[in-house]
């Protein structure tokens, strides 16, 4: 069964001009919008990171004042998490899920448009705080009270921005779940579902469960500041630690929202380039589901130093360690997939392999910090900064980069420049390690995070880090160039793009680029 390119009256094209993008209900258009937004935000958030690294290049105060520095750490995180990584995965989901399950589009196309079009407005609300009295929020992306309540005019804007981002994510997540539950082609049974789709179903469930809790928590911040409530005020019987519990009930599943689709992407790419089916498919599904469930019962490992009862510390230590088991299952499955495979190393595969190696390192440092007595040493140092950048940069961002190189020829119809892709990969991988690896050492030696100045003994590690960060940042311009070049033309891509890819998913049976509407008639699934 092929795509119905000439299928008669049904194949209406897009609207003309800018209105095509504003009013579109097409999953491919919306996917593109999400991806472009993510790319722009990746550079915006990256520029903020470079402000941080420039200031930290040497001890002493150089370029920015401490308040602005703190605004940068806060906004860098919020922009990267909510503006870059989540929209990138939402974009991948929009583009790929209907094509992978044989559906004509997302289940709720109008709501799909709204999910995206709330996003730029939410980002603008947040960015507008930079120009306000008191500047942007500067209490860290976690927005902990009482500090966050003591800033300038930014609080209500930050809170409403979170509300909008939440509405956007919840609608996107509902759409994905309904699409996968209701729109699979006949014969596409649950245990035939591509891993990327599986991981997104579980991610979507996490999103629907956690975004409302975050919305509730920031609403309490708002009422505490403006309406005299006492949720986080001990004098009135509340407790600032309550906010931390609510936040991390959201926050811990949230980091799996960022990483589970990455697992999905890597589980798509490695089999293609190892020319073997994914090893242990069903165990991958169960491992993903286990990680999803466990993510809800480990949140307080972010709060070991806050003064929890000892039973709490014990419980959260053991529960957190459990997560290493399903994660280990995944890593070994990827290794076993590559074992004796006929491997080639195109750019997507390079990023996928780097993901497996470097994400595992981030996982191991996570395991170290799951142990509450040890975490007392690591807490709020550069060690945690190194840890979560290994999971989120060499983890989530690498998976997104891998996915972009993997599916870009499918989207545009043109092959990207493999030489530039490889250059991008090596520059990125080397520089990211130069940037973040030394932070393990400065952290273990006691350098605290989120401060603009530091003691001189940390100078070398920080200088290294900053050099790595700048190389990493500018290396991403190659990505932008490669993407634009591939959109504008080049060698025509074949339908399956990668040798033998037709065995690895429905999307490779469609033309490159696919017509505006695909699978208007459901394909036959073997």
């Amino acid at each position, binding site marked *: 069964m092929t795509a119905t390119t000439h299928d008669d009256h049904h194949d209406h094209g897009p609207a003309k001009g800018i209105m095509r993008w504003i009013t579109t209900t097409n999953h491919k258009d919306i996917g593109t919008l999400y991806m472009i937004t993510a790319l722009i935000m990746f550079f915006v958030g990256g520029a903020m990171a470079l402000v941080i690294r420039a200031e930290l290049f040497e001890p002493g105060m150089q370029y920015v004042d401490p308040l602005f520095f703190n605004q940068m750490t806060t906004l860098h995180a919020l922009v990267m998490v909510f503006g870059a990584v989540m929209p990138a995965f939402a974009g991948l989901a929009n583009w790929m899920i209907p094509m992978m399950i044989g559906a004509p589009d997302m*289940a*709720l*196309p109008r*709501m799909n*448009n709204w999910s995206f079009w709330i996003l730029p407005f939410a980002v603008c609300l947040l960015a507008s705080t930079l120009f306000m009295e008191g500047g942007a929020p500067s209490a860290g992306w976690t927005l902990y009270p009482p500090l966050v309540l003591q800033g300038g005019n930014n609080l209500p804007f930050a809170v*409403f921005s979170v509300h909008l981002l939440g509405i956007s994510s919840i609608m996107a997540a509902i759409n994905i779940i309904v699409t996968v539950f209701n*729109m699979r082609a006949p014969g596409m049974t649950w245990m035939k579902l591509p891993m990327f789709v599986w991981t997104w179903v579980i991610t979507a469930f996490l999103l629907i*469960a956690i975004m409302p809790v975050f919305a509730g928590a920031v609403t309490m911040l708002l009422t505490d500041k403006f309406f005299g409530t006492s949720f986080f005020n001990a004098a009135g019987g509340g407790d600032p630690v309550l906010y931390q519990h609510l936040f991390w009930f959201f926050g811990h599943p949230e980091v799996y929202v960022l990483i589970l689709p990455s697992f999905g992407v890597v589980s798509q790419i490695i089999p293609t380039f190892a020319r073997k089916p994914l090893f242990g498919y069903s165990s991958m599904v169960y491992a993903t589901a286990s990680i999803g469930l466990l993510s809800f019962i480990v949140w307080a490992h972010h709060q070991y130093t806050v003064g929890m009862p000892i039973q709490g510390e014990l419980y959260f230590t053991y529960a957190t360690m459990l997560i290493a088991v399903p994660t280990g299952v995944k890593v070994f499955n990827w290794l076993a997939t590559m074992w004796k495979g006929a491997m080639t190393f195109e750019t997507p595969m390079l990023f996928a392999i780097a993901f497996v190696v470097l994400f595992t390192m981030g996982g191991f440092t996570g395991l170290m910090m799951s142990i509450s007595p040890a975490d007392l040493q690591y807490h709020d140092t550069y060690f945690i900064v190194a840890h979560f950048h290994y999971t989120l940069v060499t983890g989530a961002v690498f998976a997104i980069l891998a996915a972009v190189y993997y599916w870009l020829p499918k989207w545009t119809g043109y092959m990207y420049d493999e030489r530039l892709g490889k250059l991008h990969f090596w520059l990125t991988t080397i520089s990211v390690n130069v940037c973040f690896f030394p932070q393990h050492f400065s952290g273990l030696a006691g350098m605290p995070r989120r401060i603009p100045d530091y003691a001189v003994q940390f100078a070398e590690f920080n200088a290294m880090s900053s050099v790595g960060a700048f190389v990493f940042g500018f290396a991403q311009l190659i990505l932008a160039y490669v993407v634009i070049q591939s959109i504008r033309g080049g060698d025509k891509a074949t339908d399956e793009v990668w040798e033998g890819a037709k065995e690895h998913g429905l999307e490779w049976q469609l033309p490159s680029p696919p017509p505006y509407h695909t699978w208007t008639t459901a394909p036959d699934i073997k």
Partner: protein
Amino acid sequence: MASTTKDSYYVPDQARWPIVGSIGLTTLLAGFANFLNGSSVGATFMVIGAIIMVTMFFGWFGTVVSESVSGTYNHQVDVSFRMGMIWFIFSEVMFFGAFFGALYYARQLSVPWLGGEGSNLGIETHQYLWDAFSNVWPTNGPAKVGGLEDGSFHPMAAWGVPAINTMILLSSGGTVTWAHWGLLANNRGQLIKGLIATVVLGFSFVVLQAYEYHEAYTEMGLQLGTGIYGSTFFMLTGFHGLHVTIGAIFLTVVLFRSLRGHFSAEHHFAFEAAAWYWHFVDVVWLGLFIFVYWL
């Protein structure tokens, strides 16, 4: 539209309402934020944003209703709507979960700790701040935040208006089900009578709650700012009341559509969505009645 047949999934061409919704929502929220920061233009923007939002809802739902009535949606589309509504309600449940969580945390952890429970090694840290405070509920905290002039307040008793409101909501759950039976049996009279009863009961609940709030604010020293009890009481019951109002408006729309002859025994997604939403509001109320008013 003519392009769609019953056997293919309906994918609309273009949607103009979402961008209107984004502009409306952003205007409303940016206006509210400016209002909270003391700007004089804030309220104006809130009103403009709210008007845009109401227009958007009329336009968007109007489009969907007319498409539905003209038979554009096949069974699969109907299933998508149902699943979407169920997951939306689930997200609402989690939103209330955050506030219930705050209530349990205050009652089980933060207030007992402020009263000296759980101190390690015999070090009574709470004594350095508020040594006279002991663990009681309801409370407005060791500093007696808010309340009457002497810092005291009266908690809301369960067996007055709240008990009546419980009866009202529970019976409205019955009337909406009775209306559903009428719809399924093609008994339009029963459908419309059941809906009218439900809507009347729903708005009566809101009126009684407004009366209760008035009492609390003017007589009992119980306000949003009355410590953790006032905070959890008003945020939980307030968001619930807001949802009752939304649900009652939803049911009113369904009532007017029923009067115009919409819905059939086989095809009535909007009716069921409203009914599900109503039952959700009902269940949340039971949780509120037990944990906020009664225990």
